[in-house]
């Protein structure tokens, strides 16, 4: 039962990882790429590690992975926001409808 639940979580996490990587290539602008990768990577990574926690059970390894999940849920959006803020300060223009891809 727990193994099936862990499998479902790991497959959903892999789906979000692949969607984030495809969005990094296909979107037309810097800000839309940040939107794709910043959310999909945080969610996919958290779901995959949560599936691994369900597969392992209660021991020291699960506690370490739980600390890793909490750490990444705090730090990954912070790092993405820092890069986005610097790019906005340097004057990267947003993409409007009708412009060409950059």
């Amino acid at each position, binding site marked *: 039962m727990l193994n099936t639940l862990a499998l479902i979580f790991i497959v959903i996490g892999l789906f979000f990882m692949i969607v984030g990587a495809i969005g990094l290539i296909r979107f037309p602008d810097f800000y839309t790429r940040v939107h794709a990768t910043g959310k999909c990577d945080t969610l996919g990574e958290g779901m995959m590690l949560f599936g691994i926690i369900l597969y392992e059970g209660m021991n020291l390894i699960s506690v370490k992975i739980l600390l890793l999940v909490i750490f990444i849920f705090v730090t990954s959006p912070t790092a993405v926001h820092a890069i986005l803020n*610097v*790019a906005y300060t340097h004057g990267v223009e947003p993409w409007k409808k009708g412009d060409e891809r950059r």
Partner: protein
Amino acid sequence: MIDIFHASVIILILTVFICLYRVLAGPGWENRLIAVNTIGTKTIVVLVLVGLIYERPLFLDISIAYAMINFISTLAIAKYLRRGCVC
């Protein structure tokens, strides 16, 4: 279940190669920086999965240290680009 972990590692490495295209061809420094940050996040999951496959819990500590180094290096690069020095 170990086969699922093997397949997950292979798929994650393929997505890392997809992101590596954006590092090589992206216009400007901002696209390259966001792609490198994404590759770092995927590498953490690969390290945890490799530690589970070969049954060595030491890889978990390595992945926690890698997460910290990834975060601090991204913030240092952002601060350098904003002010011109890391201070």
